[in-house]
């Protein structure tokens, strides 16, 4: 709040006058261009809470679709006290800052070993996070100068994973589970974390599980340090690893 002590608890969108509620939106309806389509757009806008709504532009996209730009005032009010912000426990860092933080913390490269475990052959997730090609416009962890990435690929057995993680002196192990049957993704991940605990105890690497069917609140149940779900980007994972490694250093 930039010195504005009068920020109201209840707010509406701002067009050019306080409280006018003005928004603009655009969408396409599968209706041929014409008065009927325009009427449908107005009806939809009304249901979206835009009242009164104005279709300021429409044009045909082919014979079956119409595109609309709609302006209007929304009747909704937002109570700022109802806003819930899910706090990320770590700050999002750009690649440059991840690199310099890792360099300062470890004075060597941070080693990340990644794999799809069990029978899952879908490396889509782990590759999106690790490969330089990346995901959602963000480069994968390979792009980070201070990270050394070992991607073991698909169908890696848990004993192999533990062995490789030890051999590579991994700071973090990322496992991905994309296509699973019943609760295989949960069982596989629990097997993995148990194996690391047994083999390495407190000196085990950070364990991170990821996949569309995981719930981020399941970390304790799975025995891992962090769970990432659908839509996670490489930058989030890199930022988390930096944060977690620094926490570990502090704890030692």
């Amino acid at each position, binding site marked *: 709040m930039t010195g504005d002590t009068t920020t109201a608890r209840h707010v509406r969108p701002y067009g050019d006058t306080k409280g006018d509620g003005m928004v603009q939106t655009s969408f*396409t309806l599968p209706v041929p261009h014409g008065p009927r389509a325009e009427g449908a757009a107005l009806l939809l806008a009304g249901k979206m809470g835009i009242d009164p709504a104005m279709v300021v532009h429409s044009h045909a996209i*082919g014979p079956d679709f119409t595109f609309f730009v709609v302006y209007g005032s929304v009747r909704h009010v937002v109570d700022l006290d109802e806003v819930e912000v899910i706090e990320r426990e770590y700050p999002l860092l750009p690649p440059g800052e991840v690199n310099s933080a890792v360099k300062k913390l470890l004075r060597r490269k941070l080693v990340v070993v990644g794999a799809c475990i069990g029978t899952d052959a879908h490396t*889509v997730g782990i*590759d999106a996070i690790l490969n330089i090609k990346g995901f959602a*416009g963000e480069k994968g962890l390979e792009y980070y100068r201070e990270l050394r990435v070992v*991607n073991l*690929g698909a169908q890696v057995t848990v004993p192999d994973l533990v062995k490789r993680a030890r051999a590579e002196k991994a700071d973090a192990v990322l496992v991905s589970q994309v296509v699973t049957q019943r609760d295989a993704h949960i069982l596989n991940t629990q097997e993995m974390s148990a194996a690391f605990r047994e083999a390495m105890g407190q000196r085990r690497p950070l364990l991170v599980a990821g996949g569309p069917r995981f719930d981020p609140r399941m970390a304790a149940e799975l025995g891992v340090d962090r769970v990432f779900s659908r839509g996670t980007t490489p930058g989030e994972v890199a930022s988390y690893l930096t944060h977690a490694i620094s926490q570990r250093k502090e704890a030692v």
Partner: protein
Amino acid sequence: MALLDLDPAVVATARRLAAEAAAPVIGIARSHTTVSVERATLRLAGITGADSTHRASDVPWVNRVVDTVAAHCGLEHGVCLPVFDALRRHDLTSLTELAEATAAGQVTYALPTGRDATRAAKAARTAIAKGLRTVDRNRAQRDKLVERHGDPARRPWIYLIVATGDIDEDVVQAANAARAGADIIAVIRSTGQSLLDYVPEGATHHGFAGTYATQENFRIMRAAMDDVSKEVGRYIRLTNYASGLCMPEIAVLAGLQRLDMMLNDSMYGILFRDINPIRTFVDQRFSRQVHARAGIIINTGEDNYLTTDDAVDAAHTVTVSQLLNEHFAHEAGLPDHLLGLGHAFEINPKLPDSFRLELAHALLARELFPDAPLKWMPPTKHMTGDVFNGYLLDGFFNLAGVLTGQSILLVGMMTEAVATPFLSDRDLALANVRYVLDAAGGLAEDFRPAPDGLIVKRAHQVLGEAVDLLERVKADGLLNAIAEGTFGLMKRPADQGKGADGVIAKADDYTNPAVDLLEEGATR
């Protein structure tokens, strides 16, 4: 219309250095084969379909056969002699029957000698030549259809991407895109297909952020676009990806199903997918020979370097890669008019004079490769989700494209980095292109950068840096340069990466009639 006054001697030096840098790699490509080259050969010979009874779900017959030959007698002699010898010994009538018998464990492969070898080689050549004649017929058919329906009325050709994951939805989106003005439709592949060491089978409906490249999907899309071509009165070209671990096989499938353009870069898989460098160079050479035969325009992937490295600092790496791609392509038999060398509009728009620098880089590519159908790629790195600003940036990208005479323009989406494009995003993006082409399509005629201005100087500087880098690459060896992270900042040692175990040094008696027929240009 030389606007940059490039020194022909410097340009010739750049080409000579690229050829010298590429020569050792071409030697390696000639002296090795890969599992995918052998599978591609069997696809040309007529094997289709997959073993649907296998426990790991559908395994293509070509994989079953090549893996079995590798286990029984190795692949260093090529797959053709053992396969066609087994076909005769077991008295089977088709390769598919042989594949079924192979899966059932009834076939033992061995390298034939003497008359048996001669006979097997002859049978292989006959079968593969038949496949190549299909490729030849498709090429002739394309020429005929282009003549009948016509080429797009103006340049650049407008290239649009569809990527629904479901081939049936792709057909709907592609047809709409063509009706709205697209000249070329590219079907993006499912994420991760490049790392599959087999080509999936059949029509597919569940891709991840794209649709699997399969022979049946190719056929479905080609048939649909032929219908649309008739409707819109111009030949709609179709694009897919001959890249990843199955590059040679996908090139063959593209030739068999009359695709018109294929993404096919000499180094992309190495750098961005961590595929073994030798595997890539061997696969690339064979796939380019097939593309040359099929009259398919290749699209190279230099735009990708600029998404990982800085578009100003690394501009010369694009030029170096274009020169290498050109040399590898020429060596494989591709003429200039099939060389869709890539480059991109990726300079940070907050940098002062960014548009002038873009013009310099785009013009440099145009003048270095005057006869190549250059592919001009839109901004992605600096598309932030601010769709309004993105629309403006795409407008400038389009303007740079027409002003510098680019040949193929990949239509930029204002929703890049937000979502796969909505129907309306494509429509708005095409309106953007149309406006710029209508308003400024002829502006190139009036465009004369000042001889000592920023654009000309910058182009000379980039070419100079490219020559310096080529000197270093030649001195180090291309494979070492790749290992050291020269391109796109990626370090890829020659003995590592995916698919390395599928590379085989050829024995002296290596036999592959496909390679012979492609190099001879023969049809029998």
